[in-house]
């Protein structure tokens, strides 16, 4: 490029003063920012739009399958799993039958950091393999780091079926 041409151009533009240049540079940067925002808003909106899964009652078995005083693992599926979720659409819960009609369902996630707690039937305790959190059969903390009792899921009896209400992962805050 010929530097003379630029110089000439500069000289000619000079009478128009700096305001035109100020306007043009602001226009350029402003349009860039607006274009960026036009693209960013839907992208960020998509990322922040967390998937809300509707709650639904899931049958986990017939009443008579559960022994009174017993705690067993039950599995159920997300109410609306994504088609590619595979096994991750499954959820587990610990279901305890207290009496003829009373059931309690506990989340398997330890309230300390979310590791899956195990039920020790002979010891009548839940134990977490990560940091040794222990819960009694009613979900209250028996020992170790958990700050709260095991979260419960709503349970109901429909006819002769036991049903659990699916819930979001109960993150301790």
């Amino acid at each position, binding site marked *: 490029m010929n530097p003379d041409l630029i110089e000439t151009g500069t000289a000619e533009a000079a009478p128009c003063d700096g305001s035109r240049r100020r306007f043009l540079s602001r226009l350029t940067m402003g349009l860039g920012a607006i274009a960026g925002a036009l693209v960013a808003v839907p992208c960020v909106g998509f*990322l*922040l739009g*967390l*998937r*809300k*899964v509707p709650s639904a009652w899931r049958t986990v078995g017939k009443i008579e399958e559960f022994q009174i005083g017993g705690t067993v*693992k039950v*599995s159920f599926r*997300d109410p609306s*799993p*994504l*088609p*590619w*979720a*595979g*096994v*991750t*659409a*499954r*959820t*587990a819960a610990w279901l305890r039958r207290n009496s003829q009609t009373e059931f309690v369902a506990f989340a*398997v*996630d330890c309230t*300390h*950091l*979310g*590791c*899956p*707690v*195990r039920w*020790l039937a*002979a*010891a*009548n*305790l839940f*134990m*977490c*393999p*990560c*940091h*040794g959190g*222990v819960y*009694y059969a009613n979900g209250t903390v*028996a*020992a*170790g*780091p958990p700050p709260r009792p095991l979260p419960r899921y709503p349970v109901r009896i429909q006819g002769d079926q036991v049903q659990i209400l699916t*819930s*979001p*992962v109960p*993150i*301790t*805050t």
Partner: protein
Amino acid sequence: MQILKSIWGWFDDLTGVSSWLIPLAKHPVPHARRSAWFYVLGSATLFVFILQVVTGIALASGYVASAGEAYHTLAFISSTRFGSIVRGIHAFGASAMVILIGIHAIRVYLFGAYKYPRQIGWLTGVALLFLTLGMAFTGQLLRWDQTGFWTVVIAAYQAGRTPLVGSWLGHFILAGDTAGGATLSRFFALHVFFIPAFIFFFIGFHLYLVVQNGISEPPKAGRPVEPKTYRKWYEDLLHRDGIPFWPDAAWRDMVFGFLVIAVIVGLAITIGPPALGKPPDPTIIQASPRPDWYFLWYYALLTLIPRWSESYVIILGPLLLIVVLILLPFVAYKGERSPFKRPWAFAVVAFIVFMIAYFGMLGHVAPWSPRMNAPPLPASVVGVASGPIADGAIVFHDKGCEFCHAISGYGGIRGPDLTYAGDRITPEQMETRIYSGAANMPSYNGNITRQQLSDLLAFLSSRRRGPAAALPVSSSSQ
């Protein structure tokens, strides 16, 4: 040959590549002499990053980032001969990159190379350090086996400790209410596009600054950095005593980089990639998630700090580390560079290395984790085949005591070793402890029958040095 030369001449005439590439390659650098081998760590980190990009692209061409399929595609990749090697290179490369960037940062810190005018170089390096750790963390998740799945859940729980926005943040990590179909794709995009884009940017900036400000000369005790005169002095040094980067310095980068890559590939071929765990099925409760080695020390640290401080450390700990690393080049931007004039620099490095090694080893052993797969005590340990002592040994296992208390090498190490419990405590004391529990031990009040307790006390009391004494049975348990 002549044809190649003329093609190059034509290309160079139209692009002017050699007019900046040759001066760039031959730019003078300080003659590091005995310290020269200290200057190969950054380039080795870069080589390993390129290795990760190449193997990562190869892996991505066989991997399906779907919560339901990823595990199977990894199993498929691992089942092919070269796929297994590529996975191995990527895994050992990840470890190498974390180690090399760590040692590089330590070298720069000890040499005081973060001082004027290289502060921004340090800051871009700090960004690269954390981005590398981000890659290590997200990479472990993409294995998407049982540990990968639970690592996401644990990360969400950790984020959950943030004040006010914790719950939202936790569910943001899960990409919704539950860890499911939407979760893995996020981490794939982070690991493959988002974080690497920032790494590319910061590497470019980092290298630009290395050329712009010049590579730091080896420090010398009694030669402090004086910002007012440093640039002039450095230029004179290059003039007086500089050597061209290519090839006088670059050959060392290549030799060391080659060794690093050869070792990584060698390990990948001989040892292979990390084994895949169980599938990421949340209903398989038999899971003991552990982080890969890079975060074991952090895992151990979080476990061992006082419980009340947990939420603060989870959130403020990493923040504080970032703030300290950012402030360093602004607070200590001039003065002595030599570590021999900054003895506390050695102390800081020794402290950090010791902490990572010590807590890392603790995290590897994880004494706080109950050994939930401990088998019932064998007859050779119990000593008798029937009677209260033998029954008590079964109670000891079934009630979960053994998961935390070891006897003769069997069982967990979370609680005190009870191999010689009978020598140390009386049955009455045992009974009190069993009934009342402790901070890390559940109370068995109402959770153990008289008979079980009596057997358990008989068993524990028989745990003595030398021949077992006659059965001391607690009167209160009769």
